[in-house]
């Protein structure tokens, strides 16, 4: 029988939505135990939240000063110490999980399955390769712990359920002091967070400059949307890389995705193909983005986008 440990992602005060998505994926393993590990300083509120995720059977809270910031080198030996009772260890395929899970796996001498998008059996998983140009089905060794990251765009988060018991754990493992947190600078500002936003508006190289990109930002604000960008726009220096949508950036699944002046390189399409509705505005009718768009408009964006902004403002859409 499967016993799954999910590593919680949080920002020190709140549980990240990624955790509910990992729990949803873990439920497909039909586990007899589904435990969330919360490593934090304090963390009582985070643990209480995790305990109420539907399907969770228990929470392990490791409250320690050294868990105030998520350093993979410090967290990995602790999670490795918790993993002994489990058949599966899962975490989000966010920068937090991508950084941490392989370090845990190597400490335990096991490999990892990255970006699980479907659970096909207790040891059979599907994941994307080649920037989403193919999906591969992989069997893990049933004799070993399975370590996996969960592709967040493929799962909706679970809702609330009855509160599961929370157990405090004190871990006696040697922790390194060779890695030190210096600073964190948040990106987004007032706009919704790209990974979890219901609506996302992205711009591409066709915006021409950082100034030109303001047009996309304005459309995002009118729609109450998060702002994104293609790799080409990031490479051209129009916006910061934390806005990059695609295989090498963020993989998202909003209800509405609006691509402005984005041609639609395969690596970008990989990042958006789980969006419910994709809208493309591009002046090149041959642009690959139109192959995946639900609604396409062939037009000069510098004319169409201001028009769209006024049309939306006139209706007061939010």
């Amino acid at each position, binding site marked *: 029988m499967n016993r799954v440990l999910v590593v919680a992602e949080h920002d020190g005060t709140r549980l990240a939505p990624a955790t509910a998505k990992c729990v949803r994926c873990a439920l497909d393993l039909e586990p007899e135990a589904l435990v969330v590990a919360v490593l934090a300083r304090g963390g009582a509120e985070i643990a209480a939240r995790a305990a109420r995720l539907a399907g969770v059977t228990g929470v392990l809270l490791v409250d320690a000063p050294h868990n105030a910031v998520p350093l993979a*080198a410090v967290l990995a030996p602790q999670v490795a110490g918790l993993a002994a009772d489990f058949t599966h260890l899962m975490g989000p395929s966010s920068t937090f999980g991508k950084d941490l899970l392989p370090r845990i*796996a190597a400490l335990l001498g096991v490999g990892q399955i990255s970006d699980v998008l479907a659970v096909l059996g207790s040891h059979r998983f599907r994941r994307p*390769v080649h920037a989403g140009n193919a999906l591969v*089905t992989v069997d893990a060794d049933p004799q070993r712990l399975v370590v996996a990251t969960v592709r967040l765009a493929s799962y909706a988060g679970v809702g609330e359920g009855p509160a599961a018991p929370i157990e405090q754990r004190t871990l006696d493992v040697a922790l390194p002091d060779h890695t030190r*947190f210096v600073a964190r600078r948040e990106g*987004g500002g007032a706009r919704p967070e790209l990974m979890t936003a219901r609506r996302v508006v992205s711009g591409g190289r066709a915006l021409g400059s950082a100034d030109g990109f303001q047009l996309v930002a304005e459309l995002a604000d009118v729609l109450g949307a998060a702002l994104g960008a293609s790799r080409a726009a990031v490479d051209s220096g129009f916006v910061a890389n934390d806005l990059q949508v695609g295989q090498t950036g963020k993989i998202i699944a909003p209800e509405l995705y609006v691509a402005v002046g984005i041609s639609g390189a395969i690596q970008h399409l990989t990042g958006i193909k789980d969006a419910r509705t994709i809208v493309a505005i591009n002046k090149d009718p041959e642009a690959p983005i139109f192959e995946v768009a639900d609604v396409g408009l062939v037009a000069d964006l510098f004319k169409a986008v201001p028009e769209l902004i006024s049309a*939306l403002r006139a209706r007061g859409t939010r």
Partner: protein
Amino acid sequence: MQSVMVGIKRVVDYNVRVRVKPDGSGMATEGLKMSINPFDEIALEAALRLRESGAFAHVVLVTVGPPETEQQLRSGLAMGADRAIRIDAPFDLEPLTVARALHAVVLREQPGLVVLGKQAVDDDHGQTGQMLAALWGRPQATFASALAVTGALATVTREIDAGLETLEVDLPAVVTTDLRLNQPRYVKLPELLKAKSKPLAVLSLAELGVEAARQFTVREFTAPPVRAAGVQVNSVAELVAALDARGVLS
């Protein structure tokens, strides 16, 4: 002074579209243009700049793969690496095995820093750097967009979902690169010729005491599902109407 080690992987060129073989046994890569994995090229550029700034004496390039991967090692030597090591192995090693092989070379070479790409654009695992750091018991700073070395410390800015994070790590350490760390230099013809005479050593997995054992079985490759065709509209008014019809503006 110590060296900086860079791991590179031979992959199908970033700009080439790869398709699944009709029998689902893998990807059809025969005859396609092969290159250094783009993130690894950024790793090499970062190492070259650190050498040029005087932080390290040499740049040692390592790959794990069959003889044809020496083409990419030669490209890396032409970019400016001082010498190269090929660990002879099949193409499809699992990341943990690659990390074990790199770890064995690290123990021989004792580099002051290892720089790797954050992921290879073929398998998209994104594991090797973190696994190497774990096996080595040293710091990791993944997804780097800025890297500075002062004495026995590295300060690394990381691209994380929430924005940017800065870490300070003791050396030696493992750094994996994100896109914006740098723009790799172009190779000039004279360097390409010079690269032919730079040292390239070959080691076997057996010499390094690493087994190529597999923990996973790849069953089949399938093409991703295709989205149903959408509608083309002719004006902004029609666009707004189409969005209304789908209920996405409410």
